[in-house]
């Protein structure tokens, strides 16, 4: 897949809340009522997306993570209904 073309965003009405302690982030996903424990970098990635949709390379550059790790995180979060690929 041509990762530079695909844009990612936060799913509609996700109602996210994030708190950080040490090098971790605890995320509340209001729409589902689920709570997730993430690394602080993934938390920051979500905050980037909350500001505006972005592609994997853009996110990797902004938060200083490898593109593969960004893609893995995005896919996992998509499975949970938190992120989605922009149509």
């Amino acid at each position, binding site marked *: 897949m041509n990762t530079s073309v695909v844009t990612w965003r936060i799913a509609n009405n996700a109602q996210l809340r994030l708190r950080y302690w*040490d090098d*971790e982030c605890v995320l509340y996903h209001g729409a589902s009522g689920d709570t997730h*424990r993430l690394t602080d970098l993934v938390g920051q990635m979500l905050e980037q997306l909350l500001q505006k949709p972005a592609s994997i390379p853009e996110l990797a550059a902004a938060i200083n993570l490898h593109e593969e790790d960004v893609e893995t995180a995005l896919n996992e979060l998509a499975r949970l209904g938190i992120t989605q690929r922009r149509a």
Partner: protein
Amino acid sequence: MERLHSGLILETGPFRTRIVSHTPEVLAGLDLLYSDFPVHDDGFCDFHVQVERVQGPRRYFRPQVTFMFDGMAPFKPLPANHAFALLEWGLNWCIAGHAHHYLMLHAASLEKNGRAVILPGEPGAGKSTLTAALTLSGFRLLSDELTLVDREDRLLVPLARPVSLKNASIDVIRSFSPRAVMGAAAHDTHKGTVSHLKPTSESVLRADEKAKPALIIFPRWKADAEAKLTHHSKADAFMHTANHAFNYNLLGSLGYDLNASLIDACECYDFEYSQLSDATLVLSELMQ
């Protein structure tokens, strides 16, 4: 006694419970362990409960008691000599099932010098024994099982009810403090032998004073270990308290916010110990 037959209204922290019982074990337990608690004749009650012998042909052979919540029985009956333990479990059930005004953690909590310590419950970690020892060593008991967090001011709300002890803990606490007042033991319950420690008068008299959370401590009894505190990850502490709370999910985003402010406010530690006297000393120092 007549009061208990027609309905005794017991005040424990923010709750008033009307208790009706004709069983001698309940009467004895209330007399011994709840003597410092305020009792009322009438007024609004949060819960209406009854602990009574089950009628029917079994009542002579293997008598049983049942706990009723406003005429409805949420549990199966238990042997009659477990009646007081059944009342205690029933009272916990009332709170855990209804008091969603609060965030309810499965943890013990105590206060000293204006700071409250929360001890999340890991089965077999010795939390109850440590809680009992602390309350006999100058800590004010807030709760041994259900820690309530007020949704408005985020302070801990005391219940100050008797501390439930199991099996070996019972003798350990008797040795630790020979003057400790304990109720009659119930043998062969699903948790083994169970007895209850009377809360200190000070704890009960100050049950209307909320406490500021300052510490979350995960206790672990380990043979021959010197009392030692090590840092516990805050994110991990959050997930632990959330997963073990009675109503974290039910409260939705409020649960998340309340739990987060708790983690923000508290230093989080693992605590390894073997001697109770050692443990109480180290924790007392921490509360300065």
